[in-house]
């Protein structure tokens, strides 16, 4: 994809020897793959068992020690984590009381409710009032329609369970991420220490550390919430750190001159200036929090995720889709509301607050009255059955119809892709000897980022090899590699096409938000029906999930091209194509590379889900380890996934940085 950019700008062309470099590497690789297997010693593909590091056993032993006997003085480690869980249970219990359970005394089946939760009409009223206040009638309409969907399709009760945990988890993740981001900004050393931890939290599949979390924090919604926060926090930190870096030098200097204290500088200058960028972080936190809903429901969070799982176990595809869409609806409502609130507070800052009390007092009074009404007449609080409807049967019928009508056509298409793309790449990956891969990775690291990166990449590959997971890693690279390739080839043109067309872009945005929040399990099962179990099904699922950043970042990059440059191009008589290939694309390239980077991350994070349709890669290894209660094996396989992600991330980031420098963008 860099070819047009390089042609466009002659001064950027590489020296001749360097240009020959990668073709030579490619030729040697081809030679190695084509060689008969007997030409090289067998350990280059499969490590002899005696060379393996017994890391999995050691990790298991460490976790056992942590749980059974670790202590800080008189306080056992597990008591400490249980105390944390107890503290976190408070806000969660309050949210659940408000939205789900009401206020009760007694435990278990003997609990007695003495005041009901907020009834649906009060929740709808409050939410619409809030939306109208911060986002005007458009947002109010969206809010009403979204909540209406939840009510009419019978998802309300489960949605409130999910909402209660999201309302606690998302703010905690945003606040936590902001704090860590500030810490990173204040001390580069802290940033260096934290960055790898963030990478791990984002890339090690949740299944790998689920069991230790359950033991340490107890089985239930709190553990689910902690796992969710761990997963949703890293992008917030990254975005916060990047946003703070981007605060203009003049603003910082002004703050210094006016004698701000450190705290004043952070909260009055840094955070407000970076707010628009921070809101992107909030968006990601909300999306990721809802992304975890399915896994959280496996460990006792309940709600919509549980509905999706149970529906699909019964093959009730329609019911699964309805519950899955309810998750998407919640995500979109919360996200748009948060964005509007940020904009509203910005306006408030500039124009002064417009008597909020006069608006909120009556709203709260009405809500309280509605709540009281539910208390006095409990039947009112249930949404009438006669107004509910379900399209489940229609979805089921539709999937069946496609299955019967188009199976043969789809099957032919699948076989073509399988035989011409997937199988050859798989053979190729499995035929690569690992010493060569290690060498190439180190070399690429050295070219892109110098000796440090080279050593890191080398160490990463060697770790995977010496814990004995090379074959699984090769299969992972194959499946993710092909999927990323397909996602980028489809996503980049879509991004380019949609970026200049405002209406289309809005529709595309809704579509990719949906893809990112709709639990992948929902579309995985119909895909299995059409394409059967296998790598092709897994690939489609990964592409659907990972295509979003490829589209988003491409469009973002193109839309961010400075207008004067475009105008200069037009003034010079560029055609539309020239404008695109000579000006816009080269300038958007660093952003697009970031998009590719994120596509890879998402593809890797889908591995655990695709393990559910029978792939044989690292994701399956993590999942099997969970099934066999083997903590160490799961953690080690999870680390291997993280290593692949990190090496890919560092290489691409370094390459993007070099490119930016060459283009004179930084």
């Amino acid at each position, binding site marked *: 994809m860099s070819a047009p950019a390089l042609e466009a700008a002659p001064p950027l062309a590489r020296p001749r020897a360097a240009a020959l470099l990668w073709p030579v590497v490619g030729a040697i690789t081809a030679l190695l793959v084509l060689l008969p297997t007997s030409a090289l010693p067998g350990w280059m593909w499969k490590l002899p068992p005696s060379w393996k590091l017994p890391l999995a056993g050691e990790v298991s032993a460490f976790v056992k020690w942590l749980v059974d006997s670790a202590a800080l003085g008189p306080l056992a480690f597990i008591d400490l984590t249980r105390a944390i869980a107890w503290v976190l249970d408070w806000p969660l219990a309050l949210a659940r*009381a408000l939205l789900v359970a009401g206020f009760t005394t007694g435990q278990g089946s003997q609990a007695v409710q003495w005041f009901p939760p907020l009834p649906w009409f009060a929740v709808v009223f409050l939410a619409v009032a809030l939306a109208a206040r911060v986002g005007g009638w458009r947002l109010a309409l969206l809010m009403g329609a979204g909540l209406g969907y939840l009510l009419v399709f019978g998802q309300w*009760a489960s949605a409130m369970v999910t909402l209660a945990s999201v309302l606690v988890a998302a703010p905690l993740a945003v606040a936590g991420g902001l704090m860590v981001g500030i810490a990173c900004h204040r001390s580069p050393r802290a940033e260096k220490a934290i960055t790898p931890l963030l990478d791990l939290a984002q890339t090690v599949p949740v299944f790998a550390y689920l069991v230790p979390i359950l033991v340490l924090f107890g089985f239930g919604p709190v553990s689910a919430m902690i796992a969710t926060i761990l997963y949703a926090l890293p992008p917030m930190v990254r975005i916060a750190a990047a946003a703070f870096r981007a605060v203009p030098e003049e603003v910082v200097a002004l703050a210094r001159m006016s004698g701000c204290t450190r705290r004043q500088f952070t909260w009055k200058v840094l955070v407000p200036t970076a707010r628009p960028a921070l809101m992107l972080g909030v968006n990601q936190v909300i999306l990721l929090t809802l992304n975890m809903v399915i896994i959280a429901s496996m460990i006792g969070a309940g709600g919509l995720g549980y509905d999706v799982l149970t529906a699909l176990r019964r093959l009730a595809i329609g019911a699964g889709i309805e519950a899955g869409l309810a998750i998407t609806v919640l995500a979109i409502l919360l996200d748009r509301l948060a964005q509007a609130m940020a904009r509203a507070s910005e306006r408030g800052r500039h124009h002064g607050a417009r008597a909020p009390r006069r608006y909120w007092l009556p709203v709260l009074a009405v809500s309280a009255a509605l709540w009281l009404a539910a208390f006095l007449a409990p039947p009112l609080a249930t949404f009438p059955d006669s107004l509910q409807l379900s399209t489940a049967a229609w979805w089921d019928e539709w999937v069946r119809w496609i299955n019967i009508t188009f199976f043969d056509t789809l099957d032919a298409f699948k076989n073509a892709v399988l035989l011409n793309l997937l199988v050859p790449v798989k053979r190729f990956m499995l035929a690569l000897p690992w010493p060569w891969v290690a060498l190439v990775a180190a070399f690429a690291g050295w070219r892109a980022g110098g000796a440090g990166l080279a050593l890191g990449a080398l160490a990463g590959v060697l770790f995977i090899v010496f814990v004995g997971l090379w074959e699984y890693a090769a299969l992972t690279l194959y499946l993710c590699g092909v999927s990323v390739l397909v996602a980028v080839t489809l996503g980049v043109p879509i991004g380019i096409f949609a970026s200049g067309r405002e209406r289309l872009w809005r529709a595309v945005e809704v579509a990719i938000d949906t893809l990112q929040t709709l639990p992948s399990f929902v579309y995985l099962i119909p895909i299995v029906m059409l394409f059967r179990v296998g790598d092709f099904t897994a690939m489609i699922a990964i592409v659907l999930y990972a295509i979003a950043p490829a589209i988003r970042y491409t469009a973002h990059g193109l839309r961010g091209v400075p207008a004067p440059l475009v105008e200069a191009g037009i003034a010079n008589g560029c055609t539309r194509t020239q404008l695109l290939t000579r000006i816009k694309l080269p300038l958007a390239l660093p952003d697009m590379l970031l998009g590719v980077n994120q596509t890879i991350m998402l593809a890797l994070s889908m591995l655990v889900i695709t393990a559910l349709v*029978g792939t044989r890669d690292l994701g399956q290894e993590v999942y099997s380890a969970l099934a066999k209660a083997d903590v160490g094996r799961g953690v080690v396989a999870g680390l291997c996934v993280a290593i692949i992600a990190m090496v890919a991330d560092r290489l691409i980031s370094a390459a993007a940085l070099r490119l930016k420098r060459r283009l004179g963008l930084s």
Partner: protein
Amino acid sequence: MVSLFRRRSVSRLAAASLVALGLAAGTAQAKVESNDPIKITLHDWTGELISARIIGEVLKKAGYNVDYVQADYLAQFAGLKTGDLHLAPEIWATTGQEALDEGVKSGKVENLGETGMMAIEEWWFPDYMKEKCPGLPDWQALKKCAAEFSAPETAPKGRYLGGPVTWGGFDEERVKALDLDFEVVHAGTDAALFAELQSAYDRKAPIVLWIYAPHWAPIKYKGEFVNFPRYEPACYTDPAWGSNKEATHDCGKPRGPIWKAAWAGLKDKWPGAYSTIKDVKIDNNEMGALVARVDLDGEKVEAVVDDWIAKNEARWKGWLPK
């Protein structure tokens, strides 16, 4: 489902509200050893939901405080060991034995014995395959018509859709030992497994796959299990056993009980409940009929269980603590 959530969340809150309001515990029940809720796990298949609720409702009749908690089948062992969860009503010998053994070995989980149900797992085919492959359900028929079961990626070999790798099952070994011309493809979850079956069934397309019972699938779809040589322990360990004198696994899959598993402390904290849970017995046919009412007729789990409780009073009264 709705009332399920309500009930559960109510209890989650209970502890908090108790402290917050400084109120005494709710109506104290006589007889029972502890008023703390016994936490029973709910998984994502209907049979288990029914088992859990039957045990739970019977315990309630005995005056115990019961709480239902959603938990993953395998992840729940972490909770059972620490005492966060108390009872797992269905652990299948065929899928959960390793996790259960590991828990029992740690001394923190106790096996409370059989539920009365037997897990059956075997190769299964829909009835319409009998026309294409006469001689079924005898396994010898598969030898002759492997090609009838083939898919483009396995042709000319037949395609057998096995369970998730985590279920084990030794199908690769079985195919080799019985000299079947089949390739084993693994589904990752049983949802994927049944999605394929539904798809093939709608199109009357060839399929042979791993099915287990008690489950709604063998009730909903017309078909049969393949008759392999009957499993004996020696078949899996002694090559000389069976038709193939040089290989093990030349027989069908073992059938095993479905266990009840509990937190080891349950026995001391609620001795009465412990004996009741041990006594509960339901067999395959009874469970199959209940599962079908939920999954095929669309009744609610709660309604089916309440109906069962009303109709089987003499039986569950016999399980109550004496």
